[in-house]
């Protein structure tokens, strides 16, 4: 269909490519990176060394699951890497769910929106799950739910504390009711974990919304968040449309949730490993 490409389509495509490039910060050859928030040009290597936090305004860039795992762990052994999503409802919007899955796998290099496995963090064992926003906006479908359930089951078996990093636009609409049921499933498994007395630390990162915040992300024995992360049940746009009012400043950001008692602490990414280590140490001793 390339021959029928209009100027308009061409511009759209250019724009899309730009957006993809923006999201994928680790493109090699990108020597200078502009901070999304303050506009500061940052030398890519410096940004990397600063754990992708802007040295000027402390803006926390989004991390891929691989970057997160690299930043945080001494070692990591992935489990259930082969699970992939299935278009069991034959769902098609502007394109079929099957095509969306294939595209996302290609673009993100991931199989789905979470990576799970056994990690060592400063010498402490943990069952670690890290969501990835670059796979369909970190949306939770059957695979995300199942990988979390299996991670927790293995944690119970091995008596490892559980740490889950969330970043998600919410439930995956293409799996409809089954994605809602993942909220039930993950919460049920966490209930069982709780019974066994094994700790669970939830780390909420930008953004954590909808069905993910209303299930496992809010259920930590300790709930931590990175600074300025959007954390909500209903998104700010939905609320604005409903109440037709301006939202208070800082609404639904980590610091706002902290002030309203929903989080234990907001932790700068550069201090996160240390904070997790302290918690793991507390629970172990």
């Amino acid at each position, binding site marked *: 269909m390339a021959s029928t490409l209009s100027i308009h389509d061409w511009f759209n495509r250019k724009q899309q490519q730009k957006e993809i490039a923006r999201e994928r910060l680790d493109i090699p050859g990108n020597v200078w990176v502009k901070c999304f928030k303050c506009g500061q040009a940052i030398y890519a290597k410096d940004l990397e060394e600063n754990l992708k936090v802007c040295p000027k305004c402390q803006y926390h860039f989004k991390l891929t699951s691989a970057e997160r795992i690299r930043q945080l762990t001494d070692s990591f052994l992935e489990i259930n890497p082969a699970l992939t999503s299935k278009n069991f409802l034959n769902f098609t*919007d502007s394109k079929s769910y099957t095509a969306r899955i294939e595209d996302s796998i290609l673009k993100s290099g991931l199989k789905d929106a979470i990576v799970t496995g056994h990690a060592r963090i400063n010498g402490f064992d943990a069952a670690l799950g890290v969501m990835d926003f670059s796979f369909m906006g970190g949306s939770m479908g059957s695979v995300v739910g199942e990988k979390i359930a299996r991670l927790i089951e293995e944690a119970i078996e091995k008596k490892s504390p559980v740490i889950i990093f969330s970043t998600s636009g919410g439930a995956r609409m293409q799996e409809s*009711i089954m994605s809602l049921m993942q*909220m039930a499933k993950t919460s049920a498994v966490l209930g069982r974990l709780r019974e066994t007395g094994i700790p669970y630390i939830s780390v909420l990162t930008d953004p954590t919304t909808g069905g993910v915040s*209303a299930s496992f992300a809010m259920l930590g024995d300790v709930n931590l968040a990175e600074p300025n992360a959007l954390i909500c049940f209903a998104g700010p746009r939905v609320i604005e449309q409903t109440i037709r009012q301006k939202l208070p400043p800082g609404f639904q950001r980590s610091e706002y949730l902290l002030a309203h008692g929903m989080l234990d602490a907001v932790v700068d990414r550069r201090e996160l490993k240390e904070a997790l280590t302290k918690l793991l140490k507390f629970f172990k001793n």
Partner: protein
Amino acid sequence: MAEKKVNRQLLEFEKPLIELYDKLEKLKTMSESGKFDMTEEVKLMEKRIDAVRQQIFSNLSPSQIVQVARFIQRPTTLDYFGMIFDDFVELHGDRNFGDDPAIVGGIATLDGRSVVVMGHQKGHSTKENLTRNFGTAHPEGYRKALRLMRLAERYNKPVISLIDTPGAYPGVGAEERGQAEAIAKNLREMTELTVPFVAAITGEGGSGGALGIAMGNRVLMMEFAIYSVISPEGCASILFRDAKRANEAAVAMKITAKDMLELGVSDEIIKEPPGGAHQDPKLAAKNLKSAIIKNLNPLLSLSARELIADRYNKYRKMGIFNE
């Protein structure tokens, strides 16, 4: 008669009935004037209306089912409580912040057995709906529900929950007071509940706001109820970039009682009277009651541990994927 008037408020797709109702009205006026005896004709016309309605309802599209599920005349949770239970006493408040009018609950008797009951409450008019927030609950609603579940646990009473909500309330206060946390906590605690728990989706099963009180050992669904992760309008505006394509979304999302049964999300479909529950609320309540009793009975002999395991297994196996 007032009740007939109520029935005249028709669903959009019941338009073919308008003409028939008009004719019925004329026949009745003639009959009442005393000049002619039209009793037979009136009866025939009523029969015809029923037949046409049955015809329409035998083949509803998903988006038509959505209209029935949301219909303002559809029996509400308190309507059903009145018809299903004896001695219902409403218990208010979450003991933390307030009393949410969008979720009601309390104690009642079901067929001679003490039960704890709860459900989303919508209104039959705009005024009632404003009071009830259209059945969209705040965190305090979910926390009230949890408090009632704990009460049930302490005194070993089964829990019955009726679900009918467009979703949890999206607002500043709801977010500030932890809408996400309130729902998440309920999900976890419901799995651990030590007493039998039967949930029935009577109208709209709207996303997390519905699930927040719906994780029963058994989940029943009224014939024209819906259950979905997002409203068809919401899905259409996000995925199809056009809320007007809600009809398509309703089809694509698979949200009907039949779909839920096929996907294993619900356990039983409760038959509704011809033309939907609002045409004959008493019959709808009777069907709902017997389905609740039927599904509750086998649970009564299970131990706390078995009940928890039953629920755990039910939700643990949810999900379809490639391995």
